């Protein structure tokens, strides 16, 4: 090591002539990243950064195909009991665990899922995804809490070498979709025990059964994933090597690196997109980046705890007035706000519901088109006339009760340029439309460190841009932020919504929907109704979906496993590195084709 360093030092002095590195080979993929992995221990970690590797190196029981249809992976077939509580999976035979050199360690067998669960539900391992599993698996919560010590009572069993059985607390219609997440991945118990606390700390301390092997892992230098020769489905894996280089300034330098051909794909930041679009050569390599299922909305806070200078008591009065909420609801020009992040085609990311389109569907109907929700999903909430109308009403109703202009304390994350810009845009736009005599929007900056803790979670805001990501394929996941006990905007404190059982209307509607576990179409309908009610009462202003933006990439789109949540979309399985990056038109054409194919595929799907 040392010698090579000193050699390099000398060489660097002598070597003035520039030696340009080898050009990337077409079947390899090159990229830079700014965030290093904290661990590869997939049984504990919950962040996308780590999942982007794990998704490619460890397979679970089922997976999504490129249309988002669940297909067999390590389980070849499965069945559900009549009461919907017991799921039995038959494993694929001959799947191997290999180490980072590709050497076979053991066969993947049913016990691996039991061993994983045992680790996951052990409180002292502090798994960040345990809750998702113990909320559904029978007796798992009790075991986690320590009230139950006999693990054989927990609903994960290996019936024989190739049969895994999950028993659930209650029927969970979306259980299969959960199986693609980290907390239901298998682990080899012997290896886990041998590795001890070092499990997953680097590429040598985990085993691989997925499409790729993490061949090298040098923190703050880079990592390389190579195709796993022992992979059960290796015909579907086209990219041979995935080479990632670390660079803390990746966002600044990435575009330049791409233009020089050193990397295969890059995200083009919104600040740069103008100039790329104006340059024909660059425009030819830019295409939209995929959107995610993260939902963004502006929340009205019913539990204001902010500083007296922003008049929380006055806010409490006005926020409980529906007309006031509606006036803001219709006054917010979401397109103007979105331009700060998505200057080209901002409409692509705007959405009018909390649950995004294309998330789930039943009987060929997308969730957002069901029941009353259809009314909202198709219309833009921004409506000048309505806004002014509601303003007049609110002013009349609140006269004498509230002081105008209403101070609206709106925190933003100073660490995000886009958000900072957006805060200024929204302030100016709302004040111009509604008049400075009516509202006084006050953007307040908070540091990136501990941002949510200082703002939303404390109730330290009047209106704030919030987001939420789904955990599984069911609309239920989007109701979590608004249920009592959550720390988003405390709608349960809104006045005049309590029903006979002491709970607000919305929560009762959600409870009814949750109870429907047999008829999926009916279940979705009920959730759609609840969501429509929630939006209709203007508790939040639906704003946008995550992801998006533009990228320049040689990666083939629409060929990787698709799922609107979890980590399937992080897989490189099925993808190829193209000779040339795709331009926007070509991309849009492909997307159209894919949309059509997907509709067909979903209709044919049996799950």
């Amino acid at each position, binding site marked *: *090591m*040392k010698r*090579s*360093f*000193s050699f*390099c*030092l000398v*060489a*660097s002095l002598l*070597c003035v002539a*520039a*030696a*340009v*590195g080898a050009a990337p080979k077409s079947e390899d993929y090159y990229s*830079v990243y700014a965030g*290093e*992995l*904290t*661990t590869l*221990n997939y049984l504990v*970690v*919950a*962040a996308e950064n780590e999942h982007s590797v794990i998704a490619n190196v460890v397979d679970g029981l089922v997976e999504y195909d490129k249309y988002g249809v669940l297909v067999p992976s390590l389980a070849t077939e499965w069945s559900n009991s009549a009461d919907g509580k017991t799921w039995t999976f038959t494993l694929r035979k001959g799947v191997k665990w290999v180490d980072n050199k590709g050497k076979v360690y053991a066969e993947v067998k049913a016990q691996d899922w039991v061993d994983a669960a045992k680790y996951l539900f052990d*409180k*002292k*391992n*502090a*798994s*960040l*995804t345990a*809750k*998702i599993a113990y909320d559904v698996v029978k007796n798992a919560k009790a075991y*986690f809490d320590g009230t139950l010590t006999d693990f054989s009572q927990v609903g994960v069993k290996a019936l024989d070498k190739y049969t895994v059985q999950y028993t659930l607390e209650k029927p969970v219609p979306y259980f299969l979709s959960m199986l693609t997440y980290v907390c239901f991945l298998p682990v080899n118990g012997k290896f886990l025990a041998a590795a001890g*606390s*070092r*499990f*997953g*700390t*680097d590429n040598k301390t985990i085993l691989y059964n997925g499409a790729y092997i993490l061949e090298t892992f*040098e*923190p*703050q*230098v880079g990592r390389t994933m190579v195709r796993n020769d022992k992979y059960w489905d290796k015909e579907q894996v086209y990219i041979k090597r995935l080479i990632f*280089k*670390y*660079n*803390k*300034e990746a966002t600044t*330098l990435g575009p*330049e*690196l791409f233009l*020089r051909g*050193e990397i295969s794909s890059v995200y083009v930041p919104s600040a740069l997109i103008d100039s790329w679009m104006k340059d024909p050569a660059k425009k030819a390599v830019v295409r939209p980046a995929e959107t995610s299922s993260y939902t963004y909305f502006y929340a009205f806070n019913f539990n204001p705890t902010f500083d007296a200078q922003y008049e929380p008591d006055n806010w409490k009065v006005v926020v409980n007035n529906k007309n006031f909420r509606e006036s803001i609801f219709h006054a917010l020009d979401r397109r103007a706000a979105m331009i700060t992040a998505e200057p080209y085609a901002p409409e692509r990311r705007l959405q009018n519901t909390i649950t995004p389109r294309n998330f789930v569907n039943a009987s060929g109907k997308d969730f957002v088109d069901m029941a009353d929700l259809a009314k909202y999903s198709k219309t833009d909430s921004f409506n000048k006339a309505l806004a002014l109308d509601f303003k007049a009403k609110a002013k009349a109703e609140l006269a004498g009760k509230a002081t105008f202009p209403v101070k609206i304390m709106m925190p933003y994350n100073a660490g995000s340029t886009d958000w900072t810009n957006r805060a200024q845009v929204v302030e100016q736009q709302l004040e111009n439309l509604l008049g400075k005599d009516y509202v006084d929007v006050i953007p307040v900056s908070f540091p990136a*460190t*501990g941002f*949510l*803790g200082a703002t939303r*979670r404390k109730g330290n805001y009047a209106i704030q841009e919030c987001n939420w990501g789904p*955990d599984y394929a069911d609309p239920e996941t989007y109701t979590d*932020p608004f249920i009592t006990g959550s720390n988003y905007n405390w709608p349960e404190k809104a006045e005049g919504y309590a029903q006979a059982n002491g709970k607000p209307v919305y929560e009762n509607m959600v409870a009814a929907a949750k109870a429907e576990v047999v008829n999926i179409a009916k279940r979705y309908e009920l959730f759609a109704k609840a969501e429509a009610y929630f939006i209709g009462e203007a508790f939040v202003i639906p704003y946008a979906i995550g992801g998006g933006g533009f990228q320049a990439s040689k990666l083939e789109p629409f060929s990787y496993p698709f799922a609107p949540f979890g980590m399937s979309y992080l897989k490189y399985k099925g993808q190829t590195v193209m000779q040339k990056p795709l331009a926007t038109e070509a991309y849009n054409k492909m997307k159209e084709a894919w949309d059509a194919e997907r509709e067909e595929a979903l209709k044919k799907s049996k799950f």
Partner: protein
Amino acid sequence: MARYVLKRCLQSLATLFIVVSVVFLLMRLLPLEGYFGDGYDKLSPEQRTAALQRMGLLDPWYVQLGNFYVRLSRGDLGTSIIYRRDVPVTEIIAPRIPYSMYFGVFATLLALALGLTLGVFMARRKGQALDKAGTAYIVLINAMPSAVYLLFIQLYGTSLFSLPILFDKYRPNSWILPAISLSLGGIAGYAMWIRRYMVDELNKDYIKLAKAKGLPEKLIMVRHVMRNAFVPMAQYLPAAILSTIAGSIYIESLYSIPGMGGLLVDVIQRQDNPMVQALVLIFSSVGIVGLFLGDVLMAVFDPRIKLVKGEGAR
């Protein structure tokens, strides 16, 4: 002398103890939710408690501090809790030191060589074009925000000389730009310092005498001016070289050098306490040892500082 060294050592240890303890307590002032990052909302209170327990954050602060020192006395710096979960701190830090070291030492030497040469020439051609150009360079380096000119150097340096943008230890030419960038400030600093020193010194009577005696100018330079110039530098150099193990935040980030630069900022932001403690321990030790070595070297080199006569206290 031995007693003096011993006393200074003990004093340094006391300082180190205070620094480490203060940092320890400061880190405990940060909010607990910082330990969970984005995952916070997805966790149940029980899970949060379990995780905090695991990180040893639920004990009272004095127990935590005590545990830290007990482990330290066994030579155990602990394992990272967030930055790279469960990996021993030493295992994370150790491989990075050489990178920062090599770059730092190389840049320091380069800066010394170029800076002193430039400064000497500037002093000898005081007021001429070279002096003015050198002064302009010094002013620019000192007054411009480095975040800007370093980026320009990277941009044009790589495109004009087709050097790699990112550092790669197997590509020797990727060492060039970061090393040069690192030494720019030092060159300006040393040049300015030696120039000012020489201009001052050349006006002194003993130099005038030496000139009057007919001593060749080169000999005066080497024998008198340069030799005296190195005395104050002896005090400063050990700290300068040692501090290179801390690395440069910005340059290492720009070129993807896996050194120590920015590591501290990273781990503080992620609230990885064991990492912060270990780094603070290392950096403070380095700073203190640097000062100490500087004083000792100074005592060795400077004949005037042998027995310092002090005045009584009032």
